[in-house]
């Protein structure tokens, strides 16, 4: 499959801080790609390097077939960006900003503009100085999605939106994907990522820690199993891949690495299984593990 973005070994330093440290990421054409990581991990920095606003110190980047620094102007005609903290000019109205951004990007579709304004319930006659944070964000979102571009780079676009607007946003992204466009979505909101993203990349301290589809990532983690048996379950702890065993009479609960489930189930049947409940890890648990400090002890995807 052709790639919209491929980043290899990207390094970016701010003075003595290394914001990106040999970071890798691949975004396929026409996918919605989730970009996650704790605060200060390097998400915004990556996006700004992709926009040619920051100059990389090392690494290779292919953005829509070009180089983000050298070919910035030509590439910017083909992409739209929603910044993390949208700052606008207090004396311009929202409508003026939307037209300005659209025009500077190379034009925008008036019908689409009207539709987006309506969808996001945005009053274009208000001065930006009087917009709330969420409304400023909506100005940037409308400006981006009213343009006919191949790629959207969205940096925490829903952080200030109310739940209704989040639904409108999801609808918009889904639509864009259906029309064959590519979306990179940096977010801290798991529900958005789970609802929208085909694949995700998790970044931590400037390095890639995980990449793949949600299912693939789930496979790399543990499943929670709760089982009731006729006899007490013995020797469970000795099996590979079993963690956090807790017993209460004949009730046993534990976690198991996804690739060891089969062996564990064979072991359990010896004790007369009366009921069994298994839950895949929630997305949230999955991320918590990758965000937390023990991540370095985790298996890297390529080893798995």
């Amino acid at each position: 499959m052709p790639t919209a973005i491929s980043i290899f070994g990207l390094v970016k330093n701010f003075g003595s801080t290394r914001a990106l440290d040999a970071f890798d990421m691949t975004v396929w054409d026409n996918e919605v790609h989730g970009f996650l990581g704790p605060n200060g991990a390097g998400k915004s920095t990556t996006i700004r390097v992709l926009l040619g606003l920051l100059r990389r110190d090392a690494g290779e980047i292919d953005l829509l077939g070009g180089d983000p620094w050298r070919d910035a102007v030509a590439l910017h005609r083909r992409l739209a960006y929603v910044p993390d903290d949208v700052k606008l000019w207090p004396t311009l109205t929202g409508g003026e900003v939307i037209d300005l951004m659209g025009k500077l990007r190379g034009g925008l579709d008036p019908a689409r503009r009207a539709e987006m304004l309506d969808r996001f319930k945005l009053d274009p006659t208000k001065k930006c100085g009087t917009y709330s944070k969420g409304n400023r964000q909506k100005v940037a979102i409308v400006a981006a999605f009213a343009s006919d571009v191949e790629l959207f780079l969205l940096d925490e676009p829903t952080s200030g939106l109310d739940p209704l607007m989040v639904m409108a946003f999801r609808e918009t992204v889904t639509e864009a994907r259906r029309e064959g466009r590519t979306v990179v979505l940096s977010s801290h909101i798991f529900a958005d990522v789970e609802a929208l993203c085909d694949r995700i990349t998790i970044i931590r301290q400037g390095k890639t820690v995980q990449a793949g589809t949600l299912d693939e990532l789930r496979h790399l983690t543990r499943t929670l199993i709760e089982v009731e048996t006729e006899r007490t379950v013995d020797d469970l702890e000795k099996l590979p891949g079993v963690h956090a065993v807790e017993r209460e009479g004949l009730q046993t609960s534990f976690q198991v690495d996804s690739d060891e489930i089969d062996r564990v189930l064979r072991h359990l049947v010896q004790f007369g299984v009366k009921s069994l409940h298994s839950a895949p890890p929630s997305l949230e648990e999955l991320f918590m593990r990758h965000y937390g400090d023990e991540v370095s002890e985790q298996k890297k995807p390529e080893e798995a």
Partner: protein
Amino acid sequence: MKQAFTGTLALAWVALSRDRIQLPIWIVAITLFKVFVLAAWNGDLTDEELLSVTQFYGVHPAMRLFGLASGPTLGAYVMSRGFVLFAVLIALMSILFVVRHTRQDEDTGRAEYINSAVVGRHANLASAFMVAVGANIVLALLISLVFIFNDLPVAGSFAAGAAYAGVGIFFAGVASVTAQLAATSRGATGLALLALGVAFALPGIGNMLGQVDEEGVRIISSWPAWLSPLGWGQQMRPFAEDHWSLLGLFGFFFVAFALAGFYLETRRDIGKGFLPEKPGPAEAAPSLLNPLGLVWRLQRGAFVGWAIAVTLFSILFGAVSGDIDALLEELEEWTDIFERIGGTDVMIDAAFVTFVGIFAAVIAIYAVQVLLRMRLEESDGPAEPVMATAVSRQRWIMGYIVNSVLGAAALLLMAGLAMGISAGVALDELGTWVSDLVVAALVQLPAVLVIIGIVVAAFGLLPRRVGLIAWLVLAVAIITGPWLAGILDLPEWAENISPFSHAPAVPAEAVTATPILAMLAVAIVLVGIGILAFRRRDIDLPAG
């Protein structure tokens, strides 16, 4: 009621520490300016000279706009020259301070954060008043001391300081009310500045319409002068009559404004004003849709303000030209200074070289402001989405440079035209003066361009220092410029530092191409360096 003020002292302390640089800079800069101005004016005026300069302010209606003549003493003369200018500066300090610590905090969300702590409803405004009044009193005392050290009478010196503080405190009150009325902090500042503009105009008109005594040294102002706090300050007549009782007027109005501010504050929501925000256009005009048009749109309001001020002052400076010869006959030392600056003993020409040069330096401030907006947009963030569009860095930066250059050129042209027309009418030689002074103003443009070049280069190479560098360059260019170098009697090498010293001294001299071309070349090289450096560096955005 008492609870409404809980936390006032703590907030005053917060305000002071937030302003620990800004407020002292205002106070020290205004005081130093006073020191400087006194050093330049004081000289050793003989009694006859004092009489004649005082008459100058008494007899000529145009001069009465600038100050109120109260008698032929040195102190009174200093007040007629300086009071209005310094009163405006002090009022500005108060307005900006009060808006910064009330309305602006609401716009940035800081107020919400503060109000969520245990503070009373009125604590924030009360703390702003405390600090503003305190700052005005400190400044007033410093200015009084400056007068005293210049050997002026002690009582008059304190009366003068009190007049300044009165104006400053009055406008702290005004700003507290406009902060409640307007929908945004910009609106609040704008309304208060409008009030300051009216307060500036009224005493000028009142003095102009007033009666002068037989000797021509004391004006009895007509009623409009009494409608303005700047008028009351003048009517205190420090160093002449010291009418202390007029302080009561300032006090009364400050209390009235403060009560109105407290009252209005309880009647509105945080972040909203009483005057509704007008809806703007839902779609952008085509002229806005490019980097040049965007910068012009953002700068338009400021430009119009500058254009009005430059035109008005140019008309005034042109209008006094008819009396210059008469005045200078009496003032030998000024004749020397004008001669040195203008390089001619035709006093009227020398005077216009000086005036035009001063306007050029002031207009350079406008040009620099446009360029510093570019840095603000970068460090604050609005530049980020623009540079993520198909606008190249070169086109983006050119939007500012072109606006800066054309803005300065237009203002210079207005200054030359307005001064030329009013001098032409006064001297009854319209054609000559208009063409001479327009040329005189426009040949100053290359010097402004050199300053623009330095700021652009600094923006490319040292973006985080560009503000400091820009103001330093302006200060050096002005201090070593021909007018101040003349007054301060600087050596020639120092005078040569300023680009303004190299602009042809039209109308005293003919236009010469060499300095113009040389300065143009320097400016182009500096701008080129700036653009190249900017294209190669990171955009210095706030961390996302």
